[in-house]
């Protein structure tokens, strides 16, 4: 009994090494590129959502509804198969996943930005105005830095969800760590591949959590 448990544990480092070389790169590419594109697009969407101009605000609201109101897994299908079959646009699998993830997460990020921007007291805008700051200067110098502090906790939470959601990319044939582990399980019949994959997600999220902890600490110099 003890022997078989030890044997089982001895398999784990080998599996971890295998996953490091197979699948992890795809998972990380999707995660980091989604962060870069999603955070940028999210800010634009947040501004569009808050503008008084209905011609911009309404389409943005519609976009946010669709992106947050339909399953990410269907959006992945849409971006890979839909674009290909409807328009003949063939995107590389991983890039299609990055596009779908970015468009989806941008919607969530936009609402987080919005909650942060709306939490800034009006007096901050007025103080900037009477000092002669332009609208852009007010936003980027005065408002956004304060918004960042407010939205760090929900952003951290959303990033942890993103880490786990990357596993959905397998539905369009991206060989990320979940599907690599599952394919190996089909051969070996053992659960250990999935367990190690689970540990990978956990470690990645421990890092995400740590990074956001550091950022929050850095922003704690003021209240």
């Amino acid at each position, binding site marked *: 009994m003890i022997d078989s448990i030890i044997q089982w544990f001895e398999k784990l480092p080998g599996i971890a090494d295998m996953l490091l070389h197979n699948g992890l790169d795809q998972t990380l590419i999707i995660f980091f590129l989604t962060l870069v594109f999603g955070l940028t697009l999210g800010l634009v969407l947040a501004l569009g959502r808050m503008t008084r101009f209905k011609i911009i605000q309404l389409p943005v609201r519609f976009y946010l509804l669709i992106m947050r109101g339909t399953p990410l897994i269907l959006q992945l299908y849409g971006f890979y198969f839909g674009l290909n079959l409807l328009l003949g646009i063939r995107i590389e699998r991983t890039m299609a996943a990055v596009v779908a993830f970015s468009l989806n997460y941008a919607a969530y990020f936009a609402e987080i930005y919005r909650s942060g921007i709306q939490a800034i007291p009006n007096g*901050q805008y007025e*103080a900037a105005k*009477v000092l*002669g700051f332009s609208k852009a200067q007010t936003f980027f110098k005065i408002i956004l830095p304060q918004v960042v502090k407010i939205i760090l906790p929900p952003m951290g939470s959303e990033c942890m969800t993103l880490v786990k959601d990357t596993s959905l990319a397998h539905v369009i044939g991206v060989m990320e760590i979940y599907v690599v582990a599952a394919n190996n399980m089909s051969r070996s019949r053992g659960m250990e591949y999935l367990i190690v994959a689970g540990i990978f997600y956990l470690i990645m999220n421990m890092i995400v959590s740590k990074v956001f902890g550091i950022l929050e600490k850095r922003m704690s110099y003021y209240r």
Partner: protein
Amino acid sequence: MSVLSVTNLQKNFGKLKVLKDISFQINDGEIVTIIGSSGSGKSTLLRCMNQLEKVTKGTIEINGHTLVSMNGDTPEYASKEVQKKILMETGFVFQNFNLFPHYSVLRNVMEAPVQVAGIPKEEAREKAFGLLRKLGLEEKADAYPCELSGGQSQRVSIARALALEPKILFFDEPTSALDPELTGEVLKVIKSLADLNMTMVIVTHEMAFAKEISDRVIFMDQGVIVEDAAPEDVFNSANERTREFLGKYHDIA
């Protein structure tokens, strides 16, 4: 010489008429306090002059620039450039300070000169230090607004308003958000500015202070100017409304 002139100013919030036909002038170096009960429109008047509210009707001229004038029946505002120029030539001190919480005291003071006026950082830093020294805040230069007392915060916001070297300084109830024991230090600072011949427009509830510092006192009630005269004339006025209002304050005899 008039540095500020307001003519036939009206401001409505929806159906509510907050300012009804306000006209007055302020000369260079003059210190004018505006008194009146809450809701009399005195804060709104100040905010109209500082572009925080758009006027419904009327003309405002500041430092020789026309901020807004009437074109037939509609108000016409000056170009963005002129608006910015006027903002840079005036300073505004808020009741609630509205300091930028993510910047240090020094950066709060030097940010507008650097970002808006384009003054080199080193020069702006030197100047900001100088202002803080004058206001007794030298050792707070690296502190953040959350570490300051109310009186210190208001002094920093005065320093911030002074950093652009304005020709006119506006105060919107500068001591109303402060504990009574902290108002003294702020009033002292404002008095020290008076000695420098700064033109100031002060909305306040501190009657003794108004009486002492002002060259002129404007009493507003229900959106109109009831009195605009020397302090001794206003505080000894025979006008019914003025006497009723002043009667609520015990600190003046």
